[in-house]
């Protein structure tokens, strides 16, 4: 049986990197005595896969990982035990049974993510909401994307699904996952370029709100929160 766990990450935990969050949850599994399955071999490890790493410094209300269970455990009980074994800055929100097929893991089906970006007050020009709309209505948005190995010009416009002001913050829905992925920082960099401002002088704070799978077809996207693809485990048979 496979289960999907949704959690929040906030406060000081924002400075714990992805690999250490994985290590943290491995220890949580032991402390909470979650009946997680192991791989075989001489050095068995827990069957656990994370949907998408969260960058250092970011907070999130919608982080996910999937695990393999040896035996069922009630969702409510699992959430309670895991939270008892957690620290301030990590909170487990849900624990749901998901389909067993391999292609259904969060990592494979992840298609998009929501972010809320805040900028220190008064840094952006007064008409920034109007500017954001004009920026988003461009047919193409080209930006220099740097990776460890190369740097190249990419058009990120098709990867931005929504972009709009939300009070004094910026809300965006962007492509995420192994096929296409765009980070909120890159969108903001492009926006600042558009405003003819230097990105280096700005301090942003990005908060991930949710992650989605695409259950639509080639013509139309239909984004569904990863959590919604699972069901609560209410009864267990020991």
């Amino acid at each position: 049986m496979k289960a999907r766990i949704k959690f929040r990450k906030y406060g000081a935990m924002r400075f714990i990197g992805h690999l250490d969050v994985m290590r943290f949850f491995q220890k949580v599994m032991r402390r909470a005595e979650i009946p997680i399955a192991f791989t075989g071999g001489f050095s068995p490890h827990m069957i656990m896969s994370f949907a998408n790493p969260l960058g250092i410094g970011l907070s999130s209300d919608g982080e996910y990982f999937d695990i393999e269970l040896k035996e069922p455990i009630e969702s409510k009980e699992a959430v309670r035990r895991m939270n008892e074994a957690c620290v301030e800055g990590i909170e487990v929100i849900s624990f749901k049974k998901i389909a067993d097929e391999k292609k259904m893991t969060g990592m494979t089906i992840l298609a998009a993510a929501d972010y809320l970006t805040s900028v220190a007050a008064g840094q952006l020009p007064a008409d920034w909401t109007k500017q954001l709309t004009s920026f988003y209505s461009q047919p193409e948005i080209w930006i220099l994307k740097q990776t460890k190995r190369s740097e190249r010009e990419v058009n990120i416009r098709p990867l931005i699904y929504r972009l709009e002001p939300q009070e004094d913050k910026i809300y965006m829905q962007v492509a995420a996952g192994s096929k296409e992925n765009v980070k909120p920082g890159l969108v903001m960099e492009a926006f600042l370029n558009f405003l003819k401002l230097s990105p280096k002088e700005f301090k942003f704070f990005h908060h991930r709100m949710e992650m989605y799978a695409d259950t639509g077809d080639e013509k139309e996207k239909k984004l569904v929160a990863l959590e919604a693809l699972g069901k609560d485990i209410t009864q267990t048979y020991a």
Partner: protein
Amino acid sequence: MRKLALEDEILLNIEKPARYIGGELNAVMKKQEETDIHFAICFPDVYEVGMSHLGIQILYDMFNKRSDVWCERVYSPWTDLDKIMREREIPLFSLESQTPVREFDFLGITIQFEMCYTNILQVLDLSKIPLHAKERQDKDPIVIGGGPCTYNPEPLAEFFDLFYIGEGETVYDTLFDVYKQCRREGRTRTEFLERAARIEGIYVPQFYEAEYNEDGTLAAFYPTNPHAPSVVKKQIVMDVTHAPYPEAPVVPFIKAVQDRVVLEIQRGCIRGCRFCQAGMLYRPTRERDVEHLKQLAKKMLKNTGHEEISLSSLSSSDYSKLKELVSFLIDEFHEKGINISLPSLRIDAFSLDVMKKVQDIRKSSLTFAPEAGSQRMRNVINKGLTEEMILEGAGQAFEGGWTKVKLYFMLGLPTETEDDMKEIARLSDKVARRYYEIPKEQRHGKCQITASSSFFVPKPFTPFQWAPMLTSSEYMHRAAVVNQEFKEQLNRKSLKYNWHDAQVTVLEGVMARGDRKIGRVIEEAYRLGCLYDSWTESFHNELWMQAFENTGTDIAFYTLRERDEKERFPWEFIDIGVTRGFLRKEWERAMKGEITLNCKEKCSGCGAASFGGGVCFESKN
């Protein structure tokens, strides 16, 4: 939610920000206003090293069990943050409440190795606490030092208000009670120190004076304050089973050096190797009850979620209930995916059998510590390990499927000849030969024998405390002799030889047996920029040499001299139970190449029985 001392922008621009945020599982949060004593406990090295230290975990747990004390942790900021803190004048802070260290009542620093001394000054400096105890005011924290290096605290005497000589579990409660009383009565810092000096095991260096002979050796050492005793007696726990032990140690987010449950099975060692300071300091040997250890293991694994448990002691094979304990750990935890790691085990049929169960033979290597290449040399150091034992153990291991062996040696031991040096290579070759005696079809390719040597540093309170050291070029010459001999061995392609740096060795030697005059050298080195001296990438020998020159201090005086039988040592105001007479007798036996039996075979009257307990005492009564 806790507020962090460092801004996001700083944390995002330094290596491993997790070092500075606290908030780990089992970290203790309290309301400061509900406690009386705020204690900052510090390991003066980077977080991952400091978090791996058992002693701090024990004291952290023990202090926080008192409702009137809140103990928080502090480590050395790494060089990247160190620079930022200096530029922006950010004071050093504790991990739990992120409070500046200078606002604490106590700053306790554990001193585990000599090459951390400049980091101690860094911690004081970044905390904005005056470096010299005499310059501190009533508002400054009481700076207290503990750990093995305090058995010769003299090089650090000026920087500490107090030293705690011995095991921390014993007189801290008394010290805290005295502190609270002094505060209630509105006593001054000096008055508190005077009362503290009357507690057994507490040494207040500013209440003592040293006088020197013309040749630089110590002439006299005496208390100048009526409250200070002339002899400070080491404190030890006799009932180790019921001594405090952390059932829920703090679990770091980032990988620490020791990322596992550590179960201390005994204290002390019966072996009596003559170079080993721990073997003398922690006498008599005291074992923990096996049933108690089993319960501890269960609780600690449950409370941490660690996937590995390791036994800790100076020589685990000498623990009388080892088989019972190890069988229990395997039966109880191995199936649950918990690794069991067994360092410092003698290689024999039992340990090989255990290792087969818990390790992947093809990947793991076996470790032997012959310490010296020739039998003559091993007799001098009283290392009760013979060539037959090593070859027998290695043979059994090879037949069991192992192909990798590590051998640890020391170079520069007293009386060492060129032949003794070369024997290191020859012994390593004999181990390889033993492997190739196995028929080809039963072997798994080539074997890999890795020999490493460090240079011997004489330590206080050991039979070798009189021994001369060598110059750094002589050390390197000896390593070259060994290396050359390795190249001449039959199985040279299966052998690998590594040796340590000699410059650090010389400095370690100065610190280990240094006197109060060495304090200025440490301070000068720190001012010149020395920090993290135990880390190869940040060790600057030229700055240290400059510090010796600037202070007019002669290295040779501390290292190259063979100390006279009658010489008075700076550390001899401390009574560790083991007598000077015994150490001298052991030195003389070493010079004659005579071995001394271990404490379980025969009592050699070292003096530690005066504590009225331990394995040697119990067997006699």
